[in-house]
């Protein structure tokens, strides 16, 4: 058969590779800054965009979608062309994808800094950016499938199975989780409320980990690891079983983020058991990676690329064992809301995602510049700094999480809580300091890599279009017995459909009953919609990212009931668009905050938390005392809520502003009856307090968790 000559597009890989490095450094710097803010609150610079609540989403979005995202695209664009023996389907689409994704990242960073957020973790981006993501993802999909369809290799290699599953599942997750009603250009409300919003969000959140941070990276591992080691993949059978089992089971595991919450028990149990069943399918990937190195361990000693891959795959194995263990309720009762989770995700993020990306870059740059790596020694140093950095990051965080959970749960013999919340935070400050050192080491390693890669590129010459030859696709004469699975390997669209069906099953079986069966969210008659002022205050709560440190979910534990009050019920959140349960308690839970502290306390506290308690690590929110509340948006917000089914009376949007002002003035009056508040107002020369954002936020906080106290006991006792 006549061989065809064609060229691989290396330029697009170079661009994505460059973006990976750039955004990786940016994301890690943001991470280092938020880590420092834990023990040095002044590092927020008293500047709204750099407070923890806004910077933390910048960090998570930057490392997930910018760093790992670009790394994924670099790896996919490089490996896909070679596995399909074809150039990318369309260079135009490739560059549209590249620049589209970079503009999403820039838009994301700017909007998050500005406080435009949906308040849903890892899906914080507001609706215009959500639409951009959808469009760019479609571009990527066309390019991906276009390339697969015009391939010169009949069967699809396992890496491509993972790419296909990634594409289709991320599309599904992103679209379903992003249903929201726009109120203005940069403000929207989630279509779902409370328990349902929580379930959809964590179905999304967990599977963003699964299908953005895991499956594409596994695909990349399946290409680069055997290439770098020059060894055959250990077991084809294992690839098949672990691929299908992984994508089917993963999608069910979302509710393990909501154990002991107001989510119905059956959904929690499904989340638990599917997580446990996930251990071995995940480990299939680790085993196929490590066993592929069988007979090549001597190369690992010499080759930095393989060193990175070995630790990455090992970290993958460790975190996919730890994840299921954390999904067991009795362990989750300790780990959830603490730094244990933070340690866990960083084993995955720094170890698995970061090290695969680094290993891949050390492999790609010399190949594409046709030169050996500038310095293997520097790369090895990077490897060691990174590895030690991970350990120094993770161990103190495990320790901190465990310690804090124990302190939360310690009672005196008299039956009172032994530690105040703040004591449990100040106690683990040394661990926070240590982990930032670990993070710093990791970052220094990354800088060493940049130097090494730049030097490598300088000494080589870039091959923008790499020549290759292959026979065109033809019906091959079957030689010998084919494996049954090879049938689907030559049918990419069938594989797409099968993957979609498999990942849809788990989602549907968990989401649909929670939405349709009323007993899953029992109604509590005394729970009423927020007043206009409270609603505005809630939006400020979301904007400032309060949920990144404060949960709103009292779990049914003795210590939490004692510390915060009655445990949270599903019916309490029916008007919460979006839910704000949170996932980490760097500060106390706020689900029952209403009425606990006087208005004046909140006023003094948020102006400067260190005045109220010198050990507090909360940022100061001075701008809330200067910014006027955006009252004009109130009617539109009320109407949006009405559309979502919140029972404000018809025409309430017209009365809302007047009611808002009335409530604000009441709070102002109450505030100015306090000596200290009066002193502060005079000192800071604050004017027209009732018009300021702080009053709305106080109104919201004072409402939290109050409604249920008005309910007759019987109504809340069940559930």
């Amino acid at each position: 058969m006549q061989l065809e000559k064609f060229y691989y597009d290396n330029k697009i890989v170079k661009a994505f590779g460059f973006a990976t490095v750039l955004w990786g450094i940016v994301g890690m710097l943001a991470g280092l800054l938020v880590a420092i803010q834990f023990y040095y609150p002044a590092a927020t610079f008293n500047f709204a965009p750099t407070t923890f609540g806004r910077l933390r989403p910048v960090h998570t979005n930057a490392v997930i979608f910018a760093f790992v995202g670009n790394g994924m695209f670099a790896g996919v664009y490089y490996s896909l062309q070679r596995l399909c023996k074809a150039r990318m389907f369309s260079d135009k689409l490739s560059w549209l994808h590249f620049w589209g994704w970079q503009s999403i990242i820039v838009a994301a960073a700017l909007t998050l800094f500005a406080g435009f957020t949906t308040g849903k973790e890892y899906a914080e981006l507001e609706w215009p950016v959500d639409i951009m993501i959808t469009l760019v993802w479609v571009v990527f999909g066309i390019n991906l499938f276009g390339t697969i369809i015009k391939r010169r290799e009949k069967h699809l290699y396992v890496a491509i199975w993972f790419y296909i599953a990634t594409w289709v599942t991320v599309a599904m997750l992103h679209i379903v989780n992003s249903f929201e009603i726009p109120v203005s250009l940069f403000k929207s409300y989630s279509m779902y409320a409370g328990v349902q919003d929580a379930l959809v969000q964590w179905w999304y959140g967990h599977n963003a980990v699964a299908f953005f941070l895991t499956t594409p990276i596994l695909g990349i591992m399946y290409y680069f690891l055997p290439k770098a080691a020059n060894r055959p993949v250990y077991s084809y059978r294992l690839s098949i079983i672990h691929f299908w089992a992984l994508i089917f089971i993963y999608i069910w595991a979302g509710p393990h983020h909501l154990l002991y919450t107001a989510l119905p028990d059956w959904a929690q149990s499904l989340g638990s058991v599917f997580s446990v069943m996930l251990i071995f399918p995940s480990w299939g990937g680790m085993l196929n990676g490590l066993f592929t190195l069988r007979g090549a361990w001597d190369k690992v000693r010499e080759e930095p690329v393989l060193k990175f891959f070995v630790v990455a795959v090992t970290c993958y194995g460790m975190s996919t064992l730890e994840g299921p263990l954390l999904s067991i309720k009795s362990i989750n009762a300790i780990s959830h809301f603490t730094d244990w989770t933070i340690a866990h995700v960083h084993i995955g993020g720094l170890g698995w995602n970061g090290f695969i990306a680094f290993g891949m870059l050390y492999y790609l740059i010399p190949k594409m510049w046709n030169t050996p790596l500038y310095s293997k020694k520097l790369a090895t140093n990077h490897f060691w700094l990174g590895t030690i950095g991970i350990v120094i990051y993770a161990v103190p965080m495990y320790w901190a999480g465990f310690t804090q959970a124990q302190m939360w749960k310690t009672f005196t013999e008299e039956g009172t809580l032994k530690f105040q919340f703040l004591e449990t935070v100040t106690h683990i400050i040394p661990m926070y300091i240590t982990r930032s050192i670990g993070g710093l080491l990791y970052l220094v390693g990354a800088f060493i890599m940049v130097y090494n890669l730049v030097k490598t590129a300088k000494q080589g010459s870039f091959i923008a279009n790499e020549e290759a030859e292959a026979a065109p696709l033809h019906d091959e004469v079957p030689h010998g017995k084919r494996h049954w699975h090879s049938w689907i390997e030559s049918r990419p669209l069938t594989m797409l459909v099968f993957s979609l069906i498999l990942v849809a099953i788990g989602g549907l079986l968990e989401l649909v009953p929670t939405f349709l069966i009323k007993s899953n969210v029992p109604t509590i008659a005394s729970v009423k919609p927020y007043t206009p002022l409270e609603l505005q205050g809630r939006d400020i709560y979301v904007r400032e990212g309060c949920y990144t440190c404060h949960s709103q979910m009292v779990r049914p534990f003795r210590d939490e009931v004692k510390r915060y009050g009655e445990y949270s019920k599903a019916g309490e959140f029916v008007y919460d668009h979006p839910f704000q349960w949170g996932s980490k308690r760097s500060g106390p839970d706020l689900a029952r905050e209403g009425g606990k502290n006087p208005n004046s306390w909140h006023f003094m506290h948020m102006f400067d938390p260190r005045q109220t308690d010198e050990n507090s690590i909360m940022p100061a929110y001075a701008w809330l005392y200067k910014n006027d509340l955006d009252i004009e948006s109130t009617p539109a917000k009320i109407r949006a809520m009405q559309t979502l089914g919140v029972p404000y009376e018809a025409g309430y949007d017209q009365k809302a502003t007047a009611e808002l002002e009335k409530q604000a003035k009441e709070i102002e009056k109450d505030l100015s009856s306090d000596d200290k508040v009066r002193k502060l107002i005079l000192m800071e020369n604050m004017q027209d307090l009732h018009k300021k954002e702080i009053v709305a936020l106080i109104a919201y906080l004072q409402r939290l968790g109050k409604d249920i106290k008005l309910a007759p006991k019987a109504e809340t006792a069940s559930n």
Partner: protein
Amino acid sequence: MLLNFLKHRYTKRSFLATVAAVIASPVWAAGPPAKQSISDPVVISLVLLSLLLLLVIGILANVLLGAAKYEVEEYKKKNVPKAAAVLAIGLLTSISSFAQDTKDAAAAVVADDGLIAGMDSTTFYLLMGVLALETLVIVFLLLQLKGVIKRIKYSSVVVTESGEVVEAAGKKTGLSWWDKFNSFRPAEQEADIDLGHDYDGIRELDNRLPPWWLWGFYITIVAAAIYLYRYHVAHSAPLSAEELAIEMKAADARQAEYLKKAANNVDESNVKVLTASTDLDAGKTLFIQNCTVCHGKNAEGMVGPNLTDDYWIHSGSVSDVFKSIKYGWPDKGMKSWKDDLTPNQMAQLSSYILSLKGTNPANAKAPQGELYKDAPAVADSAAGAKDTAIAPAVTK
């Protein structure tokens, strides 16, 4: 393979890094030294056990070092000294680090006040962690020893060849437990299981699934079915809300038991000012936990009145203060604390508040209420002097 992997030097280095971090953590976590619990038999036996294990580690390490030294000599003869030297250094440093670890752990044991099983839970888990770590080190050393012995044995058989050839010669003698465990095929049979795939040069083998992997997967599926059956079909295990009920019941029983012993029958008719420092400290803690929000960090008054001056809205005798705390003045924003605090705690709190009189904190709120004559308080504190003797009886 994994065993070889364990022997590589980077594994050892990351191991050392872990150890270093683990050593550091308990030191930070220990916090200010409090009551000692060293006399508790459980603590003593655990510490002894950890020392014993340390001794075992020492002996093993000694043997291993001897063997390693021998190996180094042998390697030197063959001009391949690097690996063994690194091995020896790795071992030396890891042993000394572990010695340190145990010492710190022992220090941490005495640094915390013992409450649960003779120690607080952090100490307990710390100690357990040290024991587990020591066990791990022992296993690690044993494996190392086994490896070294094996290598020495083979090297004495094949004297003239280089190190790698020796190892290769060793592999031929049969499948290790690790090979069997994973159902590995010998490397020579690789060609038989090559599937003939070629994806950009990547070949694929048709290796069997590791049996433990497959069985593990089956077991998790069965476990999942059992879990769902127990919780949602048979209802033989408690769901979240039931768990809470069980927990609360047990805690209430424990508390009732404790209160029976703890001479708690203080009320407003017989409360006395307590002056023992343990009571005042307890009162201070309670104050910080419960009162500062309204009365200020130093009781200087915020929303609630200043508690350090001579003016009282609801009178300032110990019995009046006790009453204010117990029943509250709900109409004025002062809540009733009788469900949150035990009578003894309310007595401690009242006493602490009265002890603040005349402290003149900064930012004090202007006086509210009526001047309360100190005279009865003097009588009270005279009674308080007598109370010093009684106080311990009250607290215990």
